[in-house]
């Protein structure tokens, strides 16, 4: 399945710099409709107002982590089909396994480059 370049994407990170980096990388890849949120609860509120084609989320945020956001999204019948990519510095086996069990579509370890982001987005929509 081809990636829909017009789909809205929600970037969730508590560091403005990281949001800015991901936003620029996504723009370079051709995506235009990009929103952001600074933690899981802010993201969840936005997701309940607007239908996103993809969520790209950090793990370690306060008050709601990206891991909690993922579980909330997968438990919500209205949101549970939304593709979800975790972009995080949490690179231990237990984190990857937990995210996979919780239903994440792909997992990117920070620091990452544009090519990795592109490859993972394509992989999610090729599923």
């Amino acid at each position, binding site marked *: 399945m081809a990636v829909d370049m017009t789909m809205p994407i929600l970037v969730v990170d508590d560091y403005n710099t990281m949001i800015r980096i991901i936003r620029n990388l996504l723009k370079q890849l051709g995506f235009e409709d990009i929103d952001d949120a600074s933690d899981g609860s802010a993201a969840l509120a936005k997701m309940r107002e607007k239908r996103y084609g993809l969520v790209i989320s950090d793990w370690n945020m306060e008050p709601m982590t990206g891991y909690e956001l993922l579980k909330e999204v997968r438990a919500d019948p209205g949101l549970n089909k939304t593709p979800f990519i975790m972009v995080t510095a949490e*690179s231990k086996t237990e984190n990857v396994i937990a995210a996979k069990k919780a239903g994440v579509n792909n997992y990117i370890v920070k620091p990452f480059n544009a090519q990795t982001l592109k490859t993972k987005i394509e992989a999610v929509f090729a599923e």
Partner: protein
Amino acid sequence: MALADASHFDRLIEFLRQKRDNVTFHDIITLAEVAAQSLQGFFQAMDAKVYGELREIAGYIESMRREIGVLQVNELKNTRIPSAGEELGAIVKATENATNTIMECAEAVMAADASDPAAYKAMVDDKMMVVFEACSFQDITGQRIAKVVETLQHIESRVARFADVMQAKDLDGFLTEAERARAERKEKFLLNGPQLEGQGHDQKMVDKLFG
């Protein structure tokens, strides 16, 4: 160790044996005198023992006071730790400023109109100079980090010495509820990172785990 033995009470026992009936006021006073004399030895022995133990405790407290003094806790609390905190704050600020400057340059170059090559090159050259200047933050932050590391080493050496001298044993648990809540949150939500080199996986390994 027992401070008294039966011999301390021999006179008292003997007096009571002789006087079982017809107890007078005089007998009671005599009994009190005999009791006081009988217990004198006991109290003297106890005094010496207690005095010795109190001296030992006083010596230990004095040594502990000396060791706490060597820790220089007031200097750590009032000067070194706040100063290290300020250095770390300045590092965060400097890296944030430099990152923003570099990203602004990159965004300006990406958004620039390249139809006039000469003007475009001049603009790119200008932005690249700004990028070079912004990268100078690394020298200053390196020096600030060295100061923080020195403070940590200072604290580590003093705490290690104190723990050795006091033969300190760690207790389980948390100092505050906030500390407990942070630890529980870390465990519950698997907040382990970022990992040091060799402690976590790179993207290739994550892909294998994911696949």
